[in-house]
């Protein structure tokens, strides 16, 4: 029975990992916690919903197109909103991201209303493996999330873009005098963050009903995951997401499910007290 909870937690962690990576990448490059990622997930889910339900595309194609479309929308949001405040302090940008979040959420509410909707997908019988009940959606979630993570890892470790992203996160002034144009890299960072959150929104929409508050269900857990792994560290974000997913899920063995997000709050509180740099983060001293 515990194994079933661990598996369910693993899959939840997979969904969390994508916005956690997006959060940590944006934080690393732009030095602010983007509060809007929840609404970005919601927007991604709605775009896929329209493509899937209204245009009759398969969910796979809908998800792929929603990822591309929202990646472009994320760049537009950056250019129209965040770029105007580029060198402001992190609190200003955090508050700005809250504004973006409310705007995206209310656009969804204005167009689609508050009613819960769902993708047009066939219901399939769960599979049983080693005593575990495994849903089709869970398999799809694990495959998509793992593929996305592998792609991000490849980009960060083995491409010029990834080197530039890590360089800017490390030392933006030095990156500038090495010829790296920060605005171009920021643009690509939003493409990746937008794509990841939209994909996560589709995966979340397969797991639960789609409504304008969809992304809100993931905000606390995603922040907990990113902080647990060390903000700015994408590998840490994945480790943190899996840990938070599994701990939240298994906690329902002992506490009512409605309270499981309290576990994320507890994780954040304990970490900030005991290891503020996160599990895989590096402590820094401000001179």
């Amino acid at each position, binding site marked *: 029975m515990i194994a079933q909870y661990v598996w369910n937690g693993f899959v939840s962690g997979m969904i969390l990992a994508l916005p956690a990576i997006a959060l940590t990448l944006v934080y690393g490059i732009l030095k602010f916690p983007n509060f809007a990622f929840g609404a970005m997930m919601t927007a991604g889910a709605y775009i896929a919903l329209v493509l899937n339900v209204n245009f009759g595309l398969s969910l796979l194609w809908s998800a792929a197109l929603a990822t591309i479309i929202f990646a472009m929308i994320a760049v537009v949001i950056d250019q129209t909103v965040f770029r105007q405040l580029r060198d402001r302090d992190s609190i200003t940008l955090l508050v700005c991201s809250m504004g973006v979040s409310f705007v995206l959420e209310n656009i969804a509410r204005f167009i689609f209303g508050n009613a819960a909707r769902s993708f047009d997908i066939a219901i399939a019988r769960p599979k049983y493996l080693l005593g575990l009940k495994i849903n089709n959606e869970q398999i799809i979630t694990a495959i998509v999330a793992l593929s996305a993570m592998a792609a991000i890892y490849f980009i960060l470790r083995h491409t*010029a873009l990834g*080197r*530039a992203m*890590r*360089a800017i*996160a*490390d*030392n933006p*002034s*030095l*990156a*500038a*005098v*090495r*010829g*790296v*144009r920060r605005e171009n890299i920021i643009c690509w960072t939003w493409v990746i963050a937008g794509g990841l959150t939209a994909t996560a929104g589709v995966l979340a929409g397969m797991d639960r009903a789609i409504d304008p508050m969809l992304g809100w269900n993931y905000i606390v857990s995603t922040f907990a995951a990113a902080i647990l792994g060390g903000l700015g560290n994408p590998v840490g974000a994945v480790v943190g997401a899996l840990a938070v997913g599994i701990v939240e899920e298994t906690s329902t063995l002992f506490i009512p499910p409605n309270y499981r997000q309290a576990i994320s709050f507890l994780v954040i509180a304990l970490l900030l007290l005991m290891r503020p740099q996160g599990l895989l983060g590096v402590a820094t001293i401000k001179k």
Partner: protein
Amino acid sequence: MSAGDFILQTRDVAAGYGGGDIISNISVDVEDGKIFTVIGPNGSGKSTFIKVLAGLLRPRVGGITIGDEQIAKLSAPERVAKGVAYVPQEYNVFANLTINENLRLSTEFLKRNRQATDEQRSRVLEMFPEVGSRLTLKAGYLSGGQRQMLAFACAMMAAPVVLLLDEPSAGLAPKFVSEIFDRIKAVNQTGLTVVMIEQNVKEALRIADNVMVLVNGSPRLFVPAAEVGSHDLHKLFLG
């Protein structure tokens, strides 16, 4: 001497942070292939001046030219593309990237004509053998002197026209200081123009060709390095 002999020139440059100017009325002519050194007391504006040359700080007024090209309004990455290489005083390598990644990043965002050829890379690694022997090591694990060497190597990868050095000996163990200046001289002898600001006046003068003394943000003296001894630097520094 004709204008064509100068690779880098500034005219009436003024710059600063916030309200006031830190440096003002700086006009310099840097000869091609020479070492131009800026000395001065703490807080005289040396670092501000070199940041203006590197493009990290835009001048409020004044002009900067490389060859015949005006670069005052260009950003730091655009100046790199024009052949300006800058080695900051500290945090001069990407600690989270390997030595190889640091070297690759130095040119891969430049236009094709400035990207490091295999030949250029070999030449740089030959010039800095301690860098080439551990390419997969993260730069954060290097000592201060080794980081400085890596920073020089990165700057050299794009075959720059002018190398800007911000206090290359700062924070180094005394036994490395002479070695660093010897390396700078060796790099200069390949024909590369060097503009250096430095607190270690004795070592800086050992390799410099021309010197500017900067005090309170304004030039006080321009003189060939060999003639600095005939001036009372203490008096100049104290105004």
